Protein backbone atom coordinates (compact mmCIF):
# COMPACT_ATOMS: atom_id res chain seq x y z
CA UNK A 1 0.00 0.00 0.00
CA UNK A 2 1.72 3.13 -1.20
CA UNK A 3 1.13 6.65 0.09
CA UNK A 4 -0.45 5.20 3.14
CA UNK A 5 1.00 7.78 5.48
CA UNK A 6 0.10 10.83 3.40
CA UNK A 7 -3.51 11.02 4.46
CA UNK A 8 -3.58 10.35 8.15
CA UNK A 9 -7.15 10.45 9.37
CA UNK A 10 -6.70 8.34 12.48
CA UNK A 11 -3.18 8.33 13.86
CA UNK A 12 -3.61 5.04 15.66
CA UNK A 13 -1.01 2.50 14.59
CA UNK A 14 -3.06 -0.46 15.84
CA UNK A 15 -6.13 0.54 13.82
CA UNK A 16 -4.09 1.17 10.70
CA UNK A 17 -2.14 -2.06 10.90
CA UNK A 18 -5.17 -4.20 11.60
CA UNK A 19 -7.16 -2.57 8.78
CA UNK A 20 -4.22 -3.06 6.43
CA UNK A 21 -4.19 -6.74 7.32
CA UNK A 22 -7.95 -7.20 7.20
CA UNK A 23 -8.90 -5.45 3.95
CA UNK A 24 -7.46 -8.04 1.51
CA UNK A 25 -9.12 -10.89 3.38
CA UNK A 26 -12.44 -9.04 3.53
CA UNK A 27 -12.30 -8.46 -0.21
CA UNK A 28 -11.47 -12.08 -1.00
CA UNK A 29 -14.30 -13.17 1.29
CA UNK A 30 -16.69 -10.76 -0.46
CA UNK A 31 -15.77 -12.25 -3.84
CA UNK A 32 -16.21 -15.74 -2.37
CA UNK A 33 -19.68 -14.87 -1.08
CA UNK A 34 -20.68 -13.62 -4.54
CA UNK A 35 -19.35 -16.55 -6.57
CA UNK A 36 -20.33 -19.19 -4.02
CA UNK A 37 -23.94 -17.99 -3.83
CA UNK A 38 -25.00 -21.03 -5.85
CA UNK A 39 -23.89 -23.44 -3.14
CA UNK A 40 -24.13 -21.62 0.17
CA UNK A 41 -25.94 -18.66 1.69
CA UNK A 42 -24.80 -15.53 -0.07
CA UNK A 43 -25.03 -13.86 -3.40
CA UNK A 44 -24.76 -10.46 -4.98
CA UNK A 45 -26.30 -8.33 -2.26
CA UNK A 46 -24.36 -9.84 0.62
CA UNK A 47 -21.04 -10.06 -1.21
CA UNK A 48 -21.45 -6.55 -2.56
CA UNK A 49 -22.01 -5.18 0.92
CA UNK A 50 -18.90 -6.98 2.19
CA UNK A 51 -16.80 -5.58 -0.67
CA UNK A 52 -18.21 -2.11 -0.09
CA UNK A 53 -17.48 -2.39 3.63
CA UNK A 54 -13.80 -3.07 2.87
CA UNK A 55 -13.53 0.28 1.07
CA UNK A 56 -15.45 2.04 3.83
CA UNK A 57 -13.04 0.52 6.37
CA UNK A 58 -10.12 1.90 4.36
CA UNK A 59 -11.79 5.32 4.36
CA UNK A 60 -12.36 5.16 8.11
CA UNK A 61 -8.81 4.18 8.99
CA UNK A 62 -6.76 6.07 6.39
CA UNK A 63 -9.08 8.85 5.22
CA UNK A 64 -11.38 9.22 2.27
CA UNK A 65 -8.58 10.21 -0.13
CA UNK A 66 -6.81 6.89 0.42
CA UNK A 67 -9.95 4.92 -0.32
CA UNK A 68 -10.33 7.00 -3.48
CA UNK A 69 -6.88 5.90 -4.60
CA UNK A 70 -8.13 2.32 -4.66
CA UNK A 71 -11.54 3.15 -6.11
CA UNK A 72 -11.48 6.53 -7.86
CA UNK A 73 -14.61 8.67 -7.95
CA UNK A 74 -14.88 8.22 -11.70
CA UNK A 75 -14.40 4.44 -11.45
CA UNK A 76 -17.11 4.46 -8.80
CA UNK A 77 -19.43 6.34 -11.14
CA UNK A 78 -18.78 3.80 -13.89
CA UNK A 79 -19.39 0.86 -11.53
CA UNK A 80 -22.62 2.43 -10.23
CA UNK A 81 -24.05 2.27 -13.71
CA UNK A 82 -22.31 -0.92 -14.78
CA UNK A 83 -24.02 -3.08 -12.14
CA UNK A 84 -27.64 -2.46 -13.15
CA UNK A 85 -26.49 -2.42 -16.80
CA UNK A 86 -25.09 -5.96 -16.49
CA UNK A 87 -28.35 -7.18 -14.95
CA UNK A 88 -30.67 -5.51 -17.44
CA UNK A 89 -28.26 -6.21 -20.30
CA UNK A 90 -28.41 -9.95 -19.61
CA UNK A 91 -32.20 -9.71 -19.53
CA UNK A 92 -32.33 -7.83 -22.83
CA UNK A 93 -29.83 -10.24 -24.40
CA UNK A 94 -32.24 -13.08 -23.57
CA UNK A 95 -35.01 -11.34 -25.49
CA UNK A 96 -32.69 -10.80 -28.46
CA UNK A 97 -32.11 -14.55 -28.68
CA UNK A 98 -35.79 -15.37 -28.70
CA UNK A 99 -36.56 -15.94 -25.03
CA UNK A 100 -38.49 -13.98 -22.49
CA UNK A 101 -36.88 -11.18 -20.48
CA UNK A 102 -34.44 -12.80 -17.98
CA UNK A 103 -35.10 -16.27 -19.44
CA UNK A 104 -31.43 -17.28 -19.42
CA UNK A 105 -31.96 -20.58 -21.25
CA UNK A 106 -32.43 -18.56 -24.46
CA UNK A 107 -28.73 -17.65 -24.33
CA UNK A 108 -27.98 -21.24 -25.30
CA UNK A 109 -28.15 -20.01 -28.90
CA UNK A 110 -25.28 -17.59 -28.20
CA UNK A 111 -22.90 -20.09 -26.59
CA UNK A 112 -24.19 -23.68 -26.55
CA UNK A 113 -23.74 -24.87 -22.97
CA UNK A 114 -27.19 -26.39 -22.58
CA UNK A 115 -30.31 -24.52 -21.45
CA UNK A 116 -30.13 -25.72 -17.85
CA UNK A 117 -26.46 -24.78 -17.52
CA UNK A 118 -27.29 -21.39 -18.97
CA UNK A 119 -29.93 -20.81 -16.31
CA UNK A 120 -27.25 -21.52 -13.69
CA UNK A 121 -24.70 -19.29 -15.44
CA UNK A 122 -27.27 -16.55 -16.03
CA UNK A 123 -27.97 -16.41 -12.30
CA UNK A 124 -24.22 -16.03 -11.77
CA UNK A 125 -24.04 -13.16 -14.27
CA UNK A 126 -26.85 -11.22 -12.64
CA UNK A 127 -25.36 -11.85 -9.19
CA UNK A 128 -22.15 -10.24 -10.42
CA UNK A 129 -24.18 -7.28 -11.64
CA UNK A 130 -25.94 -6.98 -8.30
CA UNK A 131 -22.63 -7.26 -6.46
CA UNK A 132 -20.96 -4.52 -8.51
CA UNK A 133 -23.94 -2.21 -8.05
CA UNK A 134 -24.28 -2.77 -4.31
CA UNK A 135 -20.53 -2.43 -3.67
CA UNK A 136 -20.11 0.85 -5.53
CA UNK A 137 -23.33 2.39 -4.26
CA UNK A 138 -22.52 1.55 -0.63
CA UNK A 139 -19.17 3.31 -1.09
CA UNK A 140 -20.85 6.25 -2.84
CA UNK A 141 -23.40 6.61 -0.04
CA UNK A 142 -20.63 6.59 2.57
CA UNK A 143 -18.52 9.15 0.71
CA UNK A 144 -21.44 11.50 0.22
CA UNK A 145 -23.04 11.23 3.64
CA UNK A 146 -19.83 11.45 5.66
CA UNK A 147 -18.40 14.44 3.77
CA UNK A 148 -21.62 16.38 3.21
CA UNK A 149 -21.38 15.76 -0.52
CA UNK A 150 -17.87 17.13 -1.12
CA UNK A 151 -16.33 13.62 -1.29
CA UNK A 152 -12.90 14.81 -0.19
CA UNK A 153 -12.60 14.33 3.54
CA UNK A 154 -15.00 12.98 6.08
CA UNK A 155 -14.91 10.88 9.20
Amino acid at each position, binding site marked *: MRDIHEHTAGEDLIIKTSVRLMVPFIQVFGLYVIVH*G*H*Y*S*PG*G*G*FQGGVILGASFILLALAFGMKTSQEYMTVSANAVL*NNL*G*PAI*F*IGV*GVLCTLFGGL*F*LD*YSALDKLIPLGP*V*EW*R*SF*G*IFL*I*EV*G*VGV*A*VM*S*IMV*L*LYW*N*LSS*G*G*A*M*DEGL
Partner: protein
Amino acid sequence: MKNLALLATLVTGALLLYGTKDFPAWGDPQAPASTYLSPVYIEKAVEQTHVPNIVTAVLGDYRGYDTMFETVVIYCAGMAVLSVLWRKREK
Protein backbone atom coordinates in the same frame (compact mmCIF):
# COMPACT_ATOMS: atom_id res chain seq x y z
CA MET B 1 -53.40 19.77 2.29
CA LYS B 2 -51.91 18.08 5.33
CA ASN B 3 -55.32 16.72 6.33
CA LEU B 4 -55.84 15.46 2.79
CA ALA B 5 -52.54 13.58 2.91
CA LEU B 6 -53.46 12.10 6.29
CA LEU B 7 -56.85 11.06 4.94
CA ALA B 8 -55.27 9.42 1.88
CA THR B 9 -52.80 7.55 4.12
CA LEU B 10 -55.51 6.36 6.49
CA VAL B 11 -57.83 5.25 3.67
CA THR B 12 -55.02 3.37 1.92
CA GLY B 13 -53.99 1.75 5.19
CA ALA B 14 -57.56 0.75 5.98
CA LEU B 15 -57.98 -0.74 2.49
CA LEU B 16 -54.74 -2.72 2.83
CA LEU B 17 -55.77 -4.00 6.27
CA TYR B 18 -59.19 -4.93 4.86
CA GLY B 19 -57.43 -6.82 2.07
CA THR B 20 -55.41 -8.92 4.51
CA LYS B 21 -58.69 -10.34 5.88
CA ASP B 22 -58.92 -12.63 2.84
CA PHE B 23 -55.34 -13.85 3.12
CA PRO B 24 -54.75 -17.45 4.21
CA ALA B 25 -53.58 -17.82 7.80
CA TRP B 26 -49.85 -17.69 8.41
CA GLY B 27 -48.34 -21.12 7.71
CA ASP B 28 -51.65 -22.53 6.45
CA PRO B 29 -50.83 -25.82 4.67
CA GLN B 30 -53.87 -25.35 2.40
CA ALA B 31 -52.74 -21.91 1.19
CA PRO B 32 -52.05 -21.67 -2.57
CA ALA B 33 -48.40 -20.89 -1.91
CA SER B 34 -48.02 -24.08 0.12
CA THR B 35 -50.07 -26.34 -2.15
CA TYR B 36 -48.31 -25.80 -5.44
CA LEU B 37 -45.76 -22.99 -5.55
CA SER B 38 -43.34 -24.02 -2.81
CA PRO B 39 -43.41 -27.74 -3.68
CA VAL B 40 -42.70 -26.92 -7.33
CA TYR B 41 -39.70 -24.81 -6.36
CA ILE B 42 -38.41 -27.48 -3.99
CA GLU B 43 -38.89 -30.34 -6.42
CA LYS B 44 -37.88 -28.71 -9.69
CA ALA B 45 -35.36 -25.98 -8.83
CA VAL B 46 -32.22 -28.14 -8.92
CA GLU B 47 -33.40 -30.03 -11.98
CA GLN B 48 -34.31 -26.86 -13.89
CA THR B 49 -31.41 -24.61 -12.91
CA HIS B 50 -28.60 -26.85 -11.56
CA VAL B 51 -28.30 -24.50 -8.58
CA PRO B 52 -28.17 -26.45 -5.29
CA ASN B 53 -29.10 -23.38 -3.24
CA ILE B 54 -32.83 -23.02 -3.92
CA VAL B 55 -32.89 -19.52 -2.43
CA THR B 56 -30.47 -18.35 -5.11
CA ALA B 57 -32.45 -20.13 -7.82
CA VAL B 58 -35.69 -18.45 -6.75
CA LEU B 59 -34.03 -15.07 -6.27
CA GLY B 60 -32.07 -15.04 -9.50
CA ASP B 61 -34.27 -16.99 -11.86
CA TYR B 62 -37.91 -17.50 -10.89
CA ARG B 63 -38.12 -14.06 -9.30
CA GLY B 64 -35.62 -12.32 -11.55
CA TYR B 65 -37.79 -9.23 -11.91
CA ASP B 66 -37.93 -8.78 -8.15
CA THR B 67 -34.15 -8.90 -7.86
CA MET B 68 -33.74 -6.58 -10.83
CA PHE B 69 -35.94 -3.91 -9.30
CA GLU B 70 -34.23 -4.35 -5.92
CA THR B 71 -31.00 -3.45 -7.70
CA VAL B 72 -32.74 -0.50 -9.36
CA VAL B 73 -34.01 0.66 -5.95
CA ILE B 74 -30.45 0.67 -4.59
CA TYR B 75 -29.31 2.50 -7.71
CA CYS B 76 -32.06 5.10 -7.25
CA ALA B 77 -31.05 5.56 -3.59
CA GLY B 78 -27.45 6.18 -4.62
CA MET B 79 -28.43 8.61 -7.36
CA ALA B 80 -30.85 10.44 -5.05
CA VAL B 81 -28.19 10.96 -2.38
CA LEU B 82 -25.70 12.03 -5.04
CA SER B 83 -28.07 14.53 -6.62
CA VAL B 84 -29.10 16.03 -3.26
CA LEU B 85 -25.69 16.21 -1.58
CA TRP B 86 -22.97 16.35 -4.22
CA ARG B 87 -21.15 19.67 -4.49
CA LYS B 88 -17.70 21.14 -4.95
CA ARG B 89 -16.03 22.23 -1.72
CA GLU B 90 -15.74 26.03 -1.61
CA LYS B 91 -12.10 27.03 -1.31
